[in-house]
């Protein structure tokens, strides 16, 4: 029973990682950049939802939509202001800019909401749980896992069926050629940031529903882990991010439960290193061959 409990917790945490990792992986696939500020967009999303519920008195669904819209705009703004001028710059310059953006978001949050942790309301996804025999499954876990499945299916359909989705795949495959084919690269990249940031808002709300402590640094550690998950599954690959996220969550929960609570993170990172040594492009990533 404890095993099943842990498994469900792991799947739930893993689903959150997966949703965040999707944002990382899509942005990496298309803009070839590590968007370190992504974790902080999660935090912003959670704060907006928090404000919606606590201060503005919005119904949960509306708060959820507002948070998503806000993060979508935030993502597009960040991309347009900070990353677009650096399209031709070295990846290191873009990385440092993304780090600066991460600091900026954290510090703005710090100024607006203060350093004291806020307790995320459980009214959003109520704290009840479902009993299945001896098993207690929290509603939050179920919703998280379901959300993950829906997003996964939705994104797969989007990238394979729609024109915009196909454009995204084109740009990630070869930006120059996509441009020659008449695809608006800048708009496609903006769209990617928009989708990734909307997902980040969802992830933020789900994260804080399961772990209800909200502070300006809430997003950083899950962000780093989700990034690890994206690399784990093969960065640039959407199913890879899914798989990587879920595996990472399960490994973390099991590691904490059966090996050591304090070493949970170390175990996660150690598994990542081992996977990369065996499969240098991640679980589902395509190995790159350099043309000589």
């Amino acid at each position, binding site marked *: 029973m404890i095993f099943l409990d842990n498994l469900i917790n792991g799947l739930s945490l893993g689903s959150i990682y997966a949703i965040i990792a999707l944002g990382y992986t899509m942005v990496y696939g298309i803009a070839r950049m590590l968007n370190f500020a992504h974790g902080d967009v999660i935090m912003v999303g959670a704060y907006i939802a928090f404000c919606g519920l606590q201060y503005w008195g919005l119904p949960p669904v509306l708060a959820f939509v507002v948070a998503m819209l806000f993060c979508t705009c935030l993502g597009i703004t960040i991309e347009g202001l900070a990353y677009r001028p650096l399209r031709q710059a070295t990846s290191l310059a873009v990385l440092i800019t993304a780090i600066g953006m991460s600091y900026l978001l954290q510090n703005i949050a710090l100024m607006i909401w203060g350093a004291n942790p806020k307790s995320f309301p459980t009214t959003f996804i109520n704290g009840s749980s479902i009993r299945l025999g001896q098993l207690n499954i929290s509603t939050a876990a179920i919703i998280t896992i379901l959300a993950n499945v829906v997003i996964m299916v939705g994104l797969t359909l989007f990238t394979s069926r729609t024109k915009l989705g196909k454009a995204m795949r084109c740009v990630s495959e070869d930006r120059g050629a996509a441009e020659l084919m008449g695809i608006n690269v800048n708009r496609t990249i903006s769209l990617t940031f928009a989708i990734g940031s909307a997902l980040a808002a969802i992830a933020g709300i789900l994260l804080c529903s399961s772990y209800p402590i909200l502070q300006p640094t809430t997003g950083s550690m899950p962000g780093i882990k989700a990034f690890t998950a994206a690399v784990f599954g093969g*960065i640039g690959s959407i199913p890879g991010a899914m798989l990587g996220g879920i595996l990472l969550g399960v490994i973390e929960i099991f590691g904490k439960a059966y090996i050591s609570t304090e070493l949970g993170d*170390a175990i996660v990172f150690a598994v990542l290193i081992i996977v990369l040594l065996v499969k240098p492009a991640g679980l589902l990533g395509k190995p790159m061959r350099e043309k000589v």
Partner: protein
Amino acid sequence: MTKAKRKRLIYNLVTFGLVIGAFIILENMIAAKAISRSLKGQLVPICAWIIMAVSLNLVIGFSGELSLGHAGFMSIGAYTGAVVSGWLVAAFDMQDPILRLVLTILAGGILAGIFGVLIGIPVLRLRGDYLAIVTLAFGEIIRNLVNVLYIGTADGNLHFAFLNKEMPANVTMLVDGAKGAVKIKPISTFEVGFVLILITLLVVLNLVNSRAGRAIQATRDNRIAAESMGVSVTKYKMMAFVTAAVLAGMAGALYGLNSSTVVPTQFTFNQSINVLVFVVLGGLGNVLGSIISATFLTVLPEVLREFADYRMLVYAVVLILVMIFTNNPTTRAIADRLFAPVKKLFHKDRRETAGGGDVK
């Protein structure tokens, strides 16, 4: 002497000259008590961060690999420093602080170097962003492990424990898990820090201008061409990585023994990022730039203490703006045009001296 050689000589002289000059001025200011208390307290950390930045520049600027776990090596050095220093007192009753400091710094460097080899073997098999993420992972693992490490002395012997704190009754704790390294006697001095900077500069600048250093740079510029010339890429990437780890370990020992406690949260991923920012703002492969940016960015927050609430915000904005302005083609062109008259002057000047010199 060729033009390139002379340019390099001037660069090295300026680098050493600035460091030595700054040291002499600061020493005089300390003697004359013309230095604020807070700045004086910052001197040793500045030395440590300079060493961190210069050593990371060896990895990023010269061997071309992005490492995001440099603070991990620093924490190994800091913890080793605290333990070795405490143990030297407990076991050998060594009171001379300078000798103890030198020995602990050496120990910190060696242990960090050993970890550098162990981590480098898997890490350097990967490339690009994957390598970066694995160094990040190692940095986090080190921090996690240190969090559950317990070391104490009893009757002059060291006792180690991992995960659970099982220690003899009469133990004096040196490292106490999440509380970090405790009850350190601060023995770091600015003078030792200064000497350590000189050693770092000597190692890095001389290495870069030698056979091994050229091989390191060749692996950065073109991996396959370097291999085709018979340069073993792994060997030289490893050399740069481990040398940087040793220097970071030394800097860590210096930094750790500057205060009475060292806690694991001092060496997070964010700290690695800070050092990375020093390196990038100072310029890749530019040692002097690393020194200046490390100094400036360490002192700046102290100076801006009254604006404590806004300083990180300002820092973030400035960081983003600097990156955009120095890397965007349009802004760069504008900057080039603005500085063109100055540059022209400089160029003309240089050509004249070159004409007078021994070019062949």
